[in-house]
């Protein structure tokens, strides 16, 4: 038997923080690729500390629903899971290329994977997010794309992850312009319009869940709204640009695919689950989009 654990931060204060984790876990559950699927959290339950014992499977794939390699993925999660043999060198990563490490905990084999945020498949999720927020499956021509992250202040790898995906998307040549922007360092998201010539700019924050940063700070900093509580238009006019603000990329249904890719890289036997998730989430994105369009600007 094999199990999947999706390890996320969660929140003591915000009931919405776990929602994307639940949604992706359910998408994976519905593929039937794993005998058991669990969400696990730092701030909610089941806690990282208690999750392994809830499994009957001997092979466990742990995928951190985090954007970058850093404090949580390198210290907190391994410690709390009791991965006593863990050492960050096991990932042999320069900051964006963690793959997996196979360890033991509580009598089980634990395949501890790198975070979703630095997997190559994440690039596609960012693009999918741009497609869904513009409701245009071919979005790109004549359009700029900004990938937004924290700066290096909190974690140097977080900026690396943002730049990594921005570079990859730029190299594909699909969008006229692609920029990596940051909240607490140059180039700053506040000045988003300075960095683009295109009239239409899609802004995708590389965050796993919507919260204070993506729903309050960034929209206000970019000038989408004076007061986040009043919401904003999608697209919103800012200094003669149209800003298509996507909200956290982590809420995109296709994230479930990245989770599966991580587990598959580490050896999980998931057959054609990835294709099924691609199809299922494309349908979901369509349906979601019709829903969110009606709500935009509420």
């Amino acid at each position: 038997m094999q199990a999947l654990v999706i390890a996320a931060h969660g929140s003591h204060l915000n009931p919405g923080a776990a929602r994307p984790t639940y949604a992706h876990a359910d998408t994976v559950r519905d593929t039937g690729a794993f005998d058991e699927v669990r969400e696990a959290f730092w701030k909610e339950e089941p806690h990282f500390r208690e999750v392994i014992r809830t499994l009957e499977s001997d092979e466990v794939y742990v995928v951190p629903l985090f954007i970058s390699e850093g404090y949580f993925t390198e210290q907190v999660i391994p410690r709390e899971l009791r991965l006593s043999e863990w050492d960050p060198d096991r990932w042999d990563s320069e900051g964006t290329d963690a793959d997996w490490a196979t360890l033991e905990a509580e009598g089980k084999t634990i395949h501890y994977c790198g975070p979703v945020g630095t997997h190559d498949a994440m690039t596609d999720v960012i693009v999918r997010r741009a497609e869904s927020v513009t409701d245009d499956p071919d979005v790109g021509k004549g359009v700029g794309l900004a990938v937004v992250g924290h700066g290096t202040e909190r974690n140097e790898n977080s900026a690396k992850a943002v730049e990594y995906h921005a570079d990859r998307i730029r190299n594909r040549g699909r969008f006229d312009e692609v920029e990596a922007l940051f909240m607490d360092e140059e180039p700053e998201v506040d000045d988003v319009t300075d960095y683009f010539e295109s009239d239409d700019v899609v802004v995708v924050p590389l965050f796993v869940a919507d919260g204070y940063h993506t729903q309050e700070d960034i929209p206000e900093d970019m000038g989408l709204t004076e007061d986040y509580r009043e919401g904003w238009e999608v697209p919103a006019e800012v200094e003669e640009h149209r800003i298509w603000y996507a909200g956290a990329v982590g809420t995109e249904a296709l994230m479930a695919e990245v989770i599966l890719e991580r587990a598959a890289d580490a050896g999980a036997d998931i057959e054609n689950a990835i294709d099924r998730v691609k199809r299922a989430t494309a349908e979901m994105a369509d349906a979601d989009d019709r829903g969110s369009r009606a709500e935009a600007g509420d």
Partner: protein
Amino acid sequence: MNAERAVEALVERVDGGETVDCDGLSVEAGPEGYRLELPELERTGLSTEELRRTLSAFGEYATNWRYWDRVGGAGTARRAFLRWCERAPVPGEATPGESDPEPLAVPDRYDALAEGIDREWGQLLLTTTLAENGDRRYDLRHVEDAGAAVEDLDTYDEPREARELTTFDEDGRYRPLKTAPTLVPGWVFPSPSATELVSAVGFFYPATVENWHREREGELDVDHWIDTAERQTGIYDVIDELPREAVDWMAEACCVDSQCLRRREWEYDSEDPIDAPGGEGPFPCREPCSLVIAAARSWAIDESEESHTWEVELTRGERNQIEEIVDAVAEGRTEEIREADVGEGANRYRARYLRAKRFGGEDDGDEGGEGFGDLVE
């Protein structure tokens, strides 16, 4: 009850060379015929026909075996829990908090199952009843909804939907602690399978079944306060500085049954018990949870400040009123105190009056201090 299929399956199983051993029933095939043992009798040298006939006469034992055979999961928490639900014998020791009724042998258990066997797990009520063919049926609901008709409750089929039910309390406030005694009533899982039942319980109260099982097996890995605190890093690095007596206050504040239904098994360390009741529930708490860790950080910072003596002028009534306000907040009663209940110290008008008179009024801001009391030393 129709035991025919169970009897057939059992005969087939022992013919395959296995010994069947379940809740007082033991059957095996040998060169001299079958051996059958029940609490009431022992037979040897039975022909297949005799075995069938005897088993059919004790059909409850046969269907009981068949059910538990299909549940499977020897040694798992899931199996132990499902057996606990119907008061079947469970390996290990009854947990300390439990007022566990005696396990029932098959005939008594079947009588009780006909009526339905109720067990409480925190605020969950689990009822096991017998289906026609000897299978079990389950019903999972809030303890407050005992006896309610299924039609009067919101019905759920998917265990994962329990997550939605656990997210908010009755006032719509977020519940960050799943074992807080604030689970909303009004719903039912009317016919989950055994697997779905355990899975739903796992969504309501994560890991409680597994830790309960470990405890029964004598294998609960308790991490006491000081070990857990010393393990922390980052912003929680400071919590191991919390003074010894503050850990008692913290456990009294957070972990008693009025706040959390887990039974606290962690102490200050293995030799230094905490002076607050741990609780009476069936499932243990094996280490301070993330909520306690987060709160401990605030207290560690508060406790790093020195105490001073303050000179404050208050009437006796005002002094008592402050106590009433603290009690009302600590017990979460402020919402209940009505607008015109001016006899209550924690009434809003009373508190505003006290603030106007003694705390520098509305504009004193959040800093407190300024308008209230003078430092003596």
